[in-house]
């Protein structure tokens, strides 16, 4: 942690994410309006005193919607990556620990999943289910575990025959103990780094899906669907398109800076460069 705080980029990333997390958590306290409240007397007001980020085509306060949209983005990122990381750790650990034919089968499944264009796969699944925030999170999670699996497997393969693991095994430690007490804790840093970078891409995928109308459904606000609404008014209501895009950009940038900074902090080889 100390090392991270000394890496300026990671610190910027951390501050951005912490700030957005805080805003999302206290959204009900600081949102000046109900994010879904339609007000026909306040349609398409430009940013000003009453409405910090203006209002949309239905007179809803954009700032309030952005705050609630932040909750969606963060939740999708955490849950989707949580699912992907859990699957990745289990499969990667099995493959790297037991090797042999189990390893071969798991890695072939990874190859198959990697050869289907992910965005197509996600859209195809969504097409057959109803688009909802839960389905989005599950589908993104189920289509993005391959990287973690490869990573965990590689870590396990390189740690498996190290002295401390062999010593524990010689002392009679069971497989589960070896995996959870010895191998997994020593592979944690790269898993965390890849999860943080994974959240960044999950946020992008969710906002892209919502933008295409296949993600979070109206009236629930998400940065992607605020942008879809804004698209119609782009000529006379720039604020509807500008703020959600910037929010996505800053959030994804924050996660990427944090992830990269963490990697550099724990990997002396890459920080030389």
């Amino acid at each position, binding site marked *: 942690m100390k090392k991270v705080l000394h890496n300026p980029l990671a610190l910027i990333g951390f501050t951005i994410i912490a700030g957005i997390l805080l805003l999302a958590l206290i959204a009900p306290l600081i949102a000046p309006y109900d994010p879904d409240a339609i007000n026909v007397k306040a349609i398409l007001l430009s940013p000003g005193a009453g409405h910090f980020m203006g209002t949309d085509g239905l007179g809803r306060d954009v700032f309030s919607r952005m705050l609630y949209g932040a909750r969606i983005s963060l939740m999708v990122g955490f849950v989707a990556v949580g699912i992907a990381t859990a699957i990745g750790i289990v499969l990667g650990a099995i493959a790297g620990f037991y090797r042999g034919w189990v390893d071969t089968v798991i890695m072939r499944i990874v190859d198959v999943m990697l050869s*289907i*264009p992910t965005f197509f796969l996600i*859209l195809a699944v969504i097409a057959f289910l109803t688009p909802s925030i839960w389905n989005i999170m599950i589908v993104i999670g189920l289509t993005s575990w391959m990287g973690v699996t490869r990573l965990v497997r590689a870590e396990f393969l390189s740690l498996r025959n190290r002295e401390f693991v062999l010593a524990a095994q010689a002392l009679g430690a069971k497989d589960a103990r070896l995996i959870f007490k010895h191998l997994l804790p020593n592979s944690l840093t790269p898993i965390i780094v890849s999860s943080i970078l994974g959240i960044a891409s999950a946020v992008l995928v969710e906002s*892209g899906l919502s933008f295409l109308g296949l993600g979070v459904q109206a009236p629930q606000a998400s940065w992607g669907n605020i942008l879809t609404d804004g698209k119609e008014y782009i000529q006379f209501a720039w604020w509807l398109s500008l703020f*959600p895009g910037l929010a996505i950009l800053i959030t994804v940038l924050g996660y990427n800076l944090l992830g990269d900074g963490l990697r550099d902090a724990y990997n002396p080889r*890459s920080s030389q*460069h």
Partner: protein
Amino acid sequence: MLKYLLKRVFWMIPLLIGISLISFFIMHLAPGDITTSEASFNPKASEESRQKLRELYSLDKPVIVQYGLWVKRMATLDFGTSFASHQRPVFWQTKDKDGNISLGMIQEALPITLLINVLSLVLIIGVALPLGIISALKQNQLADRGITLFVFIGFAIPGFWLALMLMYWMGVQHAWLPISGLESMGHENMPWLSRTIDTLKHLVLPVFISGLTGLAGISLFVRNGMLEVLHQDYITTARSKGLNENRVIYGHALRNALLPLITIFGLSIPGLIGGSVIAESIFAIPGMGKLFYDAVLMRDFPVIMGILTIGAVLTLIGNLLADIAYAWADPRVRRGVMQ
């Protein structure tokens, strides 16, 4: 080399089986069966016509038989006909009994997407290589910092948002570039040269949008690769024997730094194909991405399944080509020294 190739091609068979299983599994995710979605297009669809469809797709047979029949049709490249657009063939053209040819949907869309992706790759190589090299040579100087900032923003910027902004700025406010489709009005009547220019102008924004993430990624990759190689002993040797610095960088360092790039390009193919959904649907370009998006909105089963399968097969072919190129460029691989 031949042995390596054969082994590599042989490995594609289990992958193809896996892909077919996943596609088939997705087809069965839908609540009810696919005849329900077919019926939703046509309120007059009677129970009798649904029964016909069930027979056509063998939905009345056990799942394992259905899978077998489906694989058999895939193997002969028979992807069926579209539900939504007047029974057009999904993959390749067919001739009806009167001799009228109806073009396949993928047959029409695929070349457009391939063109955009090839142009994106050209853009990526043309811009990312110099950026990465400059960044590595001027490590930690102003140029490097600027390029790194660009890389981070390129990774984080949502493509659909940038597309929207550029469309508004360059297409609506200034009318510098056309913002939708591939052809202007009256395209057919233009002479050959202006027709080409017209299409190219339509392609500028979509190609830029689909290439942007790759551009950022490859710049960073070239930079890090160059930095890594420049610290190697053989570079020190090359310098200490008095070799001209340009030869050291371009003759020795760059060639080795670029080697892994071949694999990266192979790996980026599914991303490029998948990414075409957003660029193509925003700019209304009739390629694979838009076709897929429209099919998803219409629940057009045969088209979805067809594109999913073709997309995966294209990825496999791309990876195979990348591996062949790698083996050709790196003798260690084709002699089996490293795997």
